[in-house]
């Protein structure tokens, strides 16, 4: 693979660059070996590991992922089981986070809620990435009319209030997990497209792309093999942060009654259910909110750390 952003910053004089062009013309495979991405990302990884906050973020993300996958094994109760005797009880040894009015164990429901949040975060961001990368590539690589049209549409999406847009789409599609994926995914594409377009524009004119073109590489090959790896860093950072945003929006939609429907445990839904009881049972609102905060914090810290690790020049 060609050297990506960080590596290029090290290549400063012309002889280094011309060396790369020459070699790219000789044999691409050789280059793959020589500038192996592994060493490059090893450096970034080392910087990431040294960053304590990023490691805390990574730990949170991993723990949340484990909880999401193994929720049935970890949770002490069935999240929907109603135990009449313990209706609306505060935290205790039996029920760490207390119970709700129906006698459901909040701890188990919070654990299960991880599943929806993590799933929505990851899938919605994947959808944003798919749409954004495709349209961004179309826009940046081919320019012209497609660029103008796509960027104007991106403007429209950008000017549209985010939560309002999500609410409107959910109203049209109707509630449900799948529709939450789609709504949040569709709303997030414009930033990805802008980001990808601008990095394509800056990379497109570089000599090694010209060289690859001279070799007869097809456009899609150039995008996948050369441009994507080079714009990898900002997109990874943005997407990591965006998972956090998606989790917050999902919770907001569910909070407003438009997202995940009961009885599936969702943090946002639990918060809206707790609204009527904040006087008598404040623990109902406390733990789901804390869970959202911690999970989003994990992704934000990790994203911050990734940015510093992948592009040391950006470090504040």
């Amino acid at each position, binding site marked *: 693979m060609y050297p990506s952003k960080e590596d290029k910053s090290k290549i400063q004089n012309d002889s280094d660059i011309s060396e790369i062009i020459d070699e790219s013309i000789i044999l691409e495979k050789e280059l793959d070996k020589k500038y192996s991405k592994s060493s490059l990302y090893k450096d970034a990884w080392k910087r990431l590991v040294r960053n304590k906050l990023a490691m805390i973020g990574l730990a949170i993300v991993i723990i949340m992922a484990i909880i999401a996958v193994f929720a049935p094994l970890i949770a002490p109760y069935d999240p929907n089981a109603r135990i009449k005797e313990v209706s609306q009880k505060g935290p205790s040894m039996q029920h760490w986070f207390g119970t709700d009015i129906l006698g459901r164990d909040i701890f188990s429901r919070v654990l299960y809620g991880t599943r929806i949040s993590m799933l929505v975060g990851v899938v919605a961001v994947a959808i944003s990435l798919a749409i954004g990368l495709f349209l961004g590539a179309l826009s940046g690589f081919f320019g012209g009319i497609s660029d103008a049209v796509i960027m104007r*549409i991106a*403007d429209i999406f*950008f*000017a549209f209030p985010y*939560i309002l847009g999500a609410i409107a789409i959910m109203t049209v599609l109707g509630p449900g997990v799948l529709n939450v994926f789609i709504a949040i995914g569709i709303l997030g594409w414009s930033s990805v497209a802008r980001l990808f377009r601008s990095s394509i524009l800056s990379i497109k004119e570089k000599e090694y792309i010209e060289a690859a073109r001279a070799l007869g590489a097809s456009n899609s090959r150039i995008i996948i093999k050369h441009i994507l790896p080079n714009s990898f860093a900002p997109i990874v950072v943005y997407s990591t942060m965006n998972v956090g945003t998606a989790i917050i929006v999902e919770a907001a939609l569910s909070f*407003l009654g438009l997202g995940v429907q009961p009885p599936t445990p969702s943090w946002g839904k639990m*918060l809206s259910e707790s609204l009527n009881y904040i006087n008598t049972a404040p623990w109902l*609102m406390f733990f789901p*909110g804390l869970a959202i*905060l911690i999970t989003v914090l994990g992704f934000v810290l990790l994203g911050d750390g990734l940015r510093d690790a992948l592009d040391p020049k950006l470090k504040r």
Partner: protein
Amino acid sequence: MFYYILKRILQIIPVIIGITILLFVLMYIIPEDPARLILEKGATPQALQNLREKMGIDKPIYVQYWRYIKQLAKGDLGTSYRYRRSVNSILAEHYPNSIKLAFAAIIIETIIGILAGIISAVRKYSFLDVLVTISTTILVCIPVYWLGMLLQIGLGLKLHWLPMSGMGDGSIKYYILPAITLASVSTAFVARITRSTMLDVLSNDYIRTAYAKGLSNNSVIYKHALKNALIPVVTYIGIDLGTLMGGAILTETIFAWPGVGRTIYLAILQRDAPVVIGGTIILVLIFVFLNLIVDIIYAFLDPRIRLEGGSSLDL
């Protein structure tokens, strides 16, 4: 300057048209008959049909859209299905509440955010800096409505310091909790942006020149550094004002604030298309115009910027 503003205003038109098309299609897809919304449940099919014809909603979507655009050009946002009132008057009633709340939030984020950012930058790595960094990171991740609920419980319910919700008589005490809630995330962003641009600016040569002139630390920081550092901060705050005016749905819901965000949200739930479309158009207009104003302020703050060469809607 005039040419630039004109150009920017002309660029807004396609965005507005795009948004109306988007909303129109969205509201058209909703499988709900507006005539049924308006008439009582027992209405005869004939009555429904008559109303549809009167409203023009039996026509194809493009005919309806054209009618709406013609109407919009005259400044008429149509009539609400639910309230049978003009959308203009509904928005006129609720908009001021949202704007007041947004301004209250902007005041908080400007004062606290900029101050925290400056302190944090000037005393880099001090206890205060660490405190600002930690609290801004947490504020960015906190769901606003949860923060609102915590404030309601703490300051309203337990301590009885402030009213829990509503606008009451419109006095300041009703504004405090919703404004803090609405401002929370933005305050964190303002503090972070101020800190990083301030650190950036303080490393510039002209700061060294200012010290070499014999200026006091305060003149250097609050005159020479701050004016440069404020440029990106002002940009953020301007754009944020637009966002806060439209994005206050959650805050307005939690605090039962009779604002426009809540009005549009309820209209969506009630399939009241004219209110949704009209309200959103106004939101977007405000958002885009504020961006334009920010760009003009920008040019005043930074003499190096020449407006004539302005880019498109790169917000």
